[in-house]
């Protein structure tokens, strides 16, 4: 009887530990992200403006960001604002585990400090440039910046505030792809586009949710 009672108490204790872990994963991780975001906001405010050439042609607005802009991993690069979802997050450079703990990450090119498959061999695309800006973010942990992005629908606004101007994209659609799908970065695009990626469904990494958007307005 004593053995059973002790075993029961042990199971309750371990179960409480598991619940504490779940609580930490869902909410506790957000505390460190909040602190990181506050620091990134301060760093971003101190950054100097960055040069970008206007390459707008008939019907297509675009810019070309100075080639010397090669931020380090985890550095603040621009601000992501999604008015419909009340999202306002500093985006960091890189989509590795450590960077995504700070906030949504911008998919980098494979230069020093970035390793495949978490970077692309193609030229890095910045907001306002022709090609696809890819931003990856957590859906349920570390502040869950992309918790509700499945609620975005055609025509919704996504704004990227950078040191070379503000760029407003309009959502064109969304799709669900396998977690190892690499082609979201590779298709050629002759227009400035934006792709948000996160896990799907919530609390699972079985699939990826992709939200696509196209540049509709820019101000430099």
């Amino acid at each position, binding site marked *: 009887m004593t053995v059973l009672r002790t075993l029961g108490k042990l199971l309750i204790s371990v179960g409480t*530990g*598991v619940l504490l*872990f779940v609580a*930490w994963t869902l909410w506790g991780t957000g505390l460190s992200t909040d602190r990181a975001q506050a620091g990134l906001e301060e760093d971003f405010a101190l950054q100097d403006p960055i040069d970008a050439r206007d390459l707008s042609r008939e019907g297509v607005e675009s810019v070309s960001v100075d080639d010397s802009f090669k931020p380090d991993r985890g550095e603040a690069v621009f601000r992501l604002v999604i008015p419909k979802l009340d999202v306002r997050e500093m985006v960091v450079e890189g*989509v*590795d*585990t450590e960077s995504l703990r700070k906030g949504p990450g911008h998919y980098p090119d494979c230069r020093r400090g970035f390793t495949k498959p978490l970077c692309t061999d193609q030229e890095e695309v910045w907001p306002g440039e022709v090609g696809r800006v890819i931003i990856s973010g957590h859906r*349920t942990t570390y502040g869950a910046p992309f918790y509700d992005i499945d609620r975005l629908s055609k025509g919704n606004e996504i704004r990227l505030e950078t040191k070379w101007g503000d760029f407003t994209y309009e959502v064109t659609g969304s799709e669900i792809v396998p977690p190892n799908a690499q082609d979201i970065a590779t298709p050629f695009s002759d227009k400035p586009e934006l792709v948000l990626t996160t896990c799907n469904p919530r609390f699972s990494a079985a699939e990826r949710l992709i939200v696509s958007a196209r540049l509709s307005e820019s101000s430099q």
Partner: protein
Amino acid sequence: MSIIRSGEGPHFKKRRSWKSRLLELSLWVAIAIATAVILVMLSEELLPSNF
């Protein structure tokens, strides 16, 4: 009429002191916290990178 001798009849459990109960509770709390800490340390292996 029956005579109850020493050691016979109903047995009553000795009441545990509050110190002993507190010590046991502390042990279970410590085990719960240790479980949570171990899971947090293992979370990089347990959770997908972009959960």
